[in-house]
């Protein structure tokens, strides 16, 4: 959640570097701030300005009083908050035992479960919900079997409604919870647990009194992300026919061009969502800062073995969760290859035609996705690595603010930032008729901003491990700053930078909130294509494109695993 626990090794050396290369260094630092000012701070200010003014640009609170007196919006607010809280609870119920079992117990297939547990995260929720609908929907495999073979009179409503959104978000996001807890638990000295045992505490009692309280910083960080991601997701609810949520209302109000008042309400809703996110972030940060229990000892704990019954129980639990989490994969695969799939449990014929349509006939989705995500990662590296370096190695004024800003980005709802961009960059550049909105460039920029924290965190975490004394040692034997960076620092941090960037890339590919709002005709990315295909009834094409998106994510994740040996919690925490 925060960078506090790695308080930078405050360096006289780095400060000297700044004064020696005063001009270049300061220009670069100014460049970072300029970029953040234009593409992060200004759009947010513009959004709030719009929310607090009327059509004549006069200050007003009317917009907010309209919002808070409208029972429909109030209901949507309550629904959104409840959905967020419910998802935190369900992901905790799955994610915490998952993390605890993987870390502390030895059972058959532990390594495999550990690897598989992260896979659900590469399924964008938009694709996930479609996959669920194919299997669990009104005419999905399960209901067809229930009605045709087991004599059910009516289909069971698994998906349509708020409970469907809850299922999809839970199975998508529980790995985030698991990762946060694993990361936090790994930093706690096992002797704290053993001390509890030595005074007679064991089992659940020990877990509630000792183990869990010590992981709360990690837990709070994970819970916050789960809450905000659920809170900000509008595509998933729309697919299962839910629109009385804040995010959905913001989207629907903005994309309609008829009613100016509704459009204004869209802006107000985004402003409220962003405010709520910031409040939650501050509360969480306060809490985490007070309770940092990590010992950085990373000592290895001896994993317990279980009785046969225990083994069976654990494997059954983990398998059922994973099977549920993999349902959408079956759905997406079946529907992307299946032809004429209606009223049968499984498709009757298989074809490649949908893949041809979304790749060879219309390659733009894939090409745009790769290109824009690539550019956004370049943005992440160009700005993120220096930001991390400034935070880890210098005492420059503003470094704390940089920390806060990158954390803020993690918490910003994509819908909110998308709408902020729409307001901020709709006016043409001076002396021209083109505005940034409408140019494809706006997409990689917003993706770059949105995914910046992952690169910053990956790099920062690596820089902390490279103790300042490594660099000083190199300098002491005569290496210049640049040589030191090349020969000592870079070889030790490149993995962190790469892993952070790969996460930035995966999440840029999957982004389906800001990009849906900022879509530029002819420059659509894959999630936009999936959403439009699905909403337009071309379900198979949506599935095919979804499968390609999943495969791309899987390839990146595989690369991350190869590089790090499956330890990635720090990027999210």
């Amino acid at each position: 959640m925060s960078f506090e626990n790695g308080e930078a090794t405050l360096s006289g050396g780095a400060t000297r570097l700044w004064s020696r290369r005063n001009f270049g260094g300061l220009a670069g630092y100014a460049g970072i701030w300029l970029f953040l000012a234009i593409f992060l701070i200004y759009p947010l200010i513009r959004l709030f300005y719009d929310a607090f003014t009327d059509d004549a640009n006069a200050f007003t609170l009317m917009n907010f009083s309209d919002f808070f007196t409208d029972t429909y919006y109030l209901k949507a607010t309550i629904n959104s908050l409840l959905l967020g809280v419910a998802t935190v609870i369900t992901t905790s119920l799955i994610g915490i035992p998952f993390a605890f079992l993987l870390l502390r117990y030895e059972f058959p297939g532990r390594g495999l479960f550990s690897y598989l547990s992260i896979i659900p995260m590469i399924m964008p929720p938009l694709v996930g919900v479609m996959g669920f609908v194919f299997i669990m929907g009104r005419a999905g495999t399960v209901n067809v079997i229930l009605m045709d073979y087991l004599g059910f009179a009516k289909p069971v409503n698994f998906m349509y409604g708020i409970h469907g959104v809850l299922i999809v978000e839970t199975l998508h996001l529980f790995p985030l919870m698991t990762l946060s807890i694993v990361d936090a638990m790994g930093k706690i000295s096992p002797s704290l647990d053993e001390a509890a045992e030595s005074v007679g505490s064991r089992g659940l009692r020990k877990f509630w009194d000792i183990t869990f309280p010590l992981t709360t910083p990690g837990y709070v960080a994970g819970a916050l992300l789960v809450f905000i991601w659920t809170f900000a997701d509008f595509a998933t609810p729309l697919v299962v026919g839910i629109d009385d949520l804040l995010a959905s209302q913001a989207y629907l109000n903005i994309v309609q061009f008829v009613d100016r008042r509704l459009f204004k309400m869209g802006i107000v809703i985004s402003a409220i969502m962003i405010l709520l996110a910031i409040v939650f972030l501050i509360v969480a940060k306060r809490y985490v800062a007070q309770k940092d229990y990590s010992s950085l000892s990373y000592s290895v704990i001896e994993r317990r073995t279980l009785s046969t019954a225990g083994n069976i129980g654990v494997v059954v639990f983990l398998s059922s969760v994973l099977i549920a989490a993999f349902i959408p994969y079956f759905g997406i695969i079946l529907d992307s290859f299946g032809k004429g799939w209606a009223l049968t449990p499984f498709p009757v014929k298989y074809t490649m035609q949908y893949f041809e349509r979304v790749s060879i006939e219309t390659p733009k989705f894939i090409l745009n996705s790769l290109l824009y995500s690539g550019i956004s990662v370049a943005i992440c590296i160009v700005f993120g690595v220096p930001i991390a370096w400034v935070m880890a190695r210098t005492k420059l004024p503003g470094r704390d603010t940089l920390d806060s800003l990158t954390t803020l980005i993690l918490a910003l709802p994509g819908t909110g930032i998308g709408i902020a961009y729409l307001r901020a960059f709709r006016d043409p550049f001076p002396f021209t008729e083109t505005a940034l909105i409408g140019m494809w460039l706006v997409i990689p920029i917003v993706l770059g901003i949105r995914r910046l924290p992952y690169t910053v965190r990956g790099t920062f975490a690596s820089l902390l491990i490279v103790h300042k004394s490594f660099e000083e040692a190199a300098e002491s034997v005569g290496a210049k700053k640049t040589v030191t960076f090349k020969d000592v620092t870079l070889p030790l941090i490149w993995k962190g930078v790469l892993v952070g960037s790969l996460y930035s890339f995966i999440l840029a590919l999957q982004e389906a909130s800001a990009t849906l709002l900022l879509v530029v005709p002819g420059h659509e990315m894959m999630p936009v294509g999936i959403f439009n295909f699905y909403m337009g009834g071309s379900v198979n094409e949506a599935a095919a494109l979804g499968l390609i998106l999943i495969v791309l994510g899987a390839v990146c994740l595989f690369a991350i695993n190869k590089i790090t040996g499956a330890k990635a919690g720090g990027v999210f925490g």
Partner: protein
Amino acid sequence: MNIELKDIVKSFGSLEAVSHVSLDIKDGELFTLLGPPGCGKTTILRLIGGFHEANSGRILFDGKPVMGKPPYERNIGMVFQNYALWPHMTNAENVAYGLKIKKVPRNEIVERVNHALGKVNLEGLGDRYPGQLSGGQQQRVALARALVLNPGVLLLDEPLSNLDAKIRLQVRAEIRKLQKDLGITTVYVTHDQEEALTLSDRIAVLNHGELQQVGTPWELYERPANPFVADFIGINNLIPGEIRETEDNGKRAKVATKFGVLLGACDSRLKIGDKCTVCVRPETAAIGERKNGASENMIPGAISFASFIGNTMRYDIDIGENTILRVDIQNPRNHSPHDIGDKVNVVFSTATTLAIPS
């Protein structure tokens, strides 16, 4: 409580951390496990505590087997090397936690916690969090937490290793006093020979998972069983040799070495012709000439290094054959220092010279 270990073996993967160790720890004694890092001392402590299970062998508490029992069924109190105080609980809560688990009535808990904190001189600090205390104070909270349950045995895992030198001496004395007052059987792990010698009733020296010697501090110092124990206990001068002849029913021997024949006490296991090691303690050796009539060994050499350590002047003397002898001149006030390179004789009494099996 009396603790017996019988032929204990504990492996981690292919590494045998404890190899066929048997110990008999008597009720009420402070028993120290001493050895270099990785010698298996902490593993033995954790086996006693129930944090590891032995691959083979038996552990008996007061004659009753405890193998397979988890820590909370063994009636132990453990102080961890890093204290392992729970950072989210106050010091009083840390101490009280075990009593709460045992469902001790609330007012009795308060009373016992206060008493335990008083015992370790921490009255009034119960409401603070461990992070607000110094290392020495945290150490005492950990001690109070272990003692408040009136355990049958107190297990201390290098409890002083995270403290700075001055406080270490103070806490060491307090631990010893507390242990004597309570009369609690205590197993103490350390790699510091001085700590072991000053604290312990008895010491077990370990190396590579194997038991080297068990004995009182005096026995270890005066009669080390082998060169490892001799070296570890602080007898740095070890000279290899062979028993030439024995006197006084084998209690004394003449040993042939590369540096001439040396006279000294002889370990009873040695026979004529056996390879042996001659031990000479640095503080019993001197620089100078053999006094007339005195029963002293003498080896000539040259000063190779000299260092002044306040109460001691320490010389390393090269006696050839790649061998250095160390001589500690205590109270060097009236001593006129030698220069490096000076040719000198090392003399040491035959009474303090000891031949032990190699």
